[in-house]
């Protein structure tokens, strides 16, 4: 699984304050902990007002790549100016989060991704919103993949997020996401499928259990990436167990190594 660490997000209060105060230690620590937790990609969302965002994004890029030079940065913004500011500071080509079927993103994000040959997260949202079924989401994805192919981006650089709505507001919401995953992997076998995990459990008790089950079912439906908090221990255990059980772990070595390294299973001394 390709894990994208979600924690450096300026819309979270503490992180927003750290960005505003230029508290580099706080950001570095978040970056390092997520990377050590297995996130090879780190999402950077400055979360600030558009006029400040390019500057904040550039600062985040500088701090984080200095702290974890081996991580790939995932620049998270709807604002193409902020994305460009981040790309220009980045030592190695970052991932962009994200392109959707909304016209302003097609106009702003797509040309950047093609110009710099970045990896790119794709969301099946159009100007009329999020399609309520898998066929509708697939149609948006199909249109966007056509554009990225024309722009010279190979499918391997695409991470399609099937999107997930809260199960509390519609009991079919899980199935819609899983079906979208299956359709995408069938039609575009070389694209990656990633997903944020926490939406599914919004408005529910025991959210972490729902998130874990969602991840397991998602992996079976074709997800090979997730946007998550890599420090969640139970989630990591479930994720690795699912991959092992689905034959994605040669000789079960990833699972057993993670066990030996104390990364999964009951926490030591707990």
């Amino acid at each position, binding site marked *: 699984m390709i894990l994208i660490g979600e924690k450096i997000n300026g819309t979270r209060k503490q992180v927003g304050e750290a960005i505003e105060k230029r508290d580099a230690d706080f950001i570095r620590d978040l970056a390092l902990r997520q990377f050590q937790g297995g996130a090879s990609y780190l999402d950077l969302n400055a979360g600030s007002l558009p006029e400040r965002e390019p500057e904040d994004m550039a600062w985040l890029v500088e701090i984080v790549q200095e702290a974890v030079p081996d991580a790939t940065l995932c620049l998270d913004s709807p604002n193409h100016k902020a994305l460009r500011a981040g790309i220009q500071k980045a030592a190695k080509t970052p991932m962009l989060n994200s392109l959707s079927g909304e016209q302003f993103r097609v106009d702003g994000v797509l040309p950047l991704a093609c110009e710099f040959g970045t990896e790119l997260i794709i969301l099946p949202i159009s100007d009329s919103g999020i399609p309520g079924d898998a066929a509708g989401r697939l149609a948006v994805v199909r249109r966007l993949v056509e554009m990225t192919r024309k722009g010279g981006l190979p499918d391997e650089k695409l991470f399609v997020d099937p999107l997930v709505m809260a199960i509390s507001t519609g009991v079919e919401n899980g199935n819609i996401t899983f079906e979208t995953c299956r359709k995408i992997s069938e039609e575009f076998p070389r694209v990656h499928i990633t997903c944020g995990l926490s939406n599914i459990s919004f408005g529910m008790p025991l959210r972490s259990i729902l998130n874990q089950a969602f991840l397991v079912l998602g992996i079976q439906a074709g997800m090979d990436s997730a946007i998550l908090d890599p420090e969640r221990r139970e989630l990591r255990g479930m994720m690795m167990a699912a991959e092992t059980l689905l034959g994605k772990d040669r*000789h*079960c*070595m990833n699972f*057993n*190594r993670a066990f*030996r390294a104390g990364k999964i299973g009951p926490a030591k001394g707990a």
Partner: protein
Amino acid sequence: MQELVNAIVEMMENDALALTKKYLEAGTPPMQIVDAYKEALKIIGQRFEQGTYFVPELILAGEMMNAASDLIKPYISAEEGKGGGSAKVGRFLLGTVEGDIHDIGKGMAGMLMDINGFEVKDLGVDVPAKRFIEEARQFQPDIIGLSGLLTLSYDSMKQVVEALKEAGMRDKVKVIIGGGQMDEHACQYVGADAWVTDAVAGIKYALGWMGK
């Protein structure tokens, strides 16, 4: 050579094979390399007993060993002539007893015995007592390993031991029973010489009996 031992022990199969090739091409005596593998397997066995390594590590170790012996073989025949190389430690006849078809533990026991220098003959699963006797006459094993996961296997195992007695062969072989349900009580009931619940433990008995 320590580098090779570490690569095997840490399950770095590509590194282990690359190092094996490198040493062979540099003219290292093949038996030194074999010894490195044995040393590594000993450590892997210890980790298995300590509960930090599990069945996949044993299987992967076996695969590394097999791949390595394919690399090493041509060098051994060149150096010591065909059929040369180290003498076998002993002969080990092995099978899952009648009425039982479990074969993971048995397969592992066979593999580990092979790696530890035994000539192994594996009769497969659901093997009747009569067949054990026939094969034992031919193969002349030093040790017979009876495998079974079910408590029902006790009776089939006992039949093999009885049949060995009738054939006058009981004194010439050691009998070891293996399986998750084995214990001292079962061992006495069956009339075996030793019982084990995992394949690694069986190696210790076998090597001990052969004076190794």
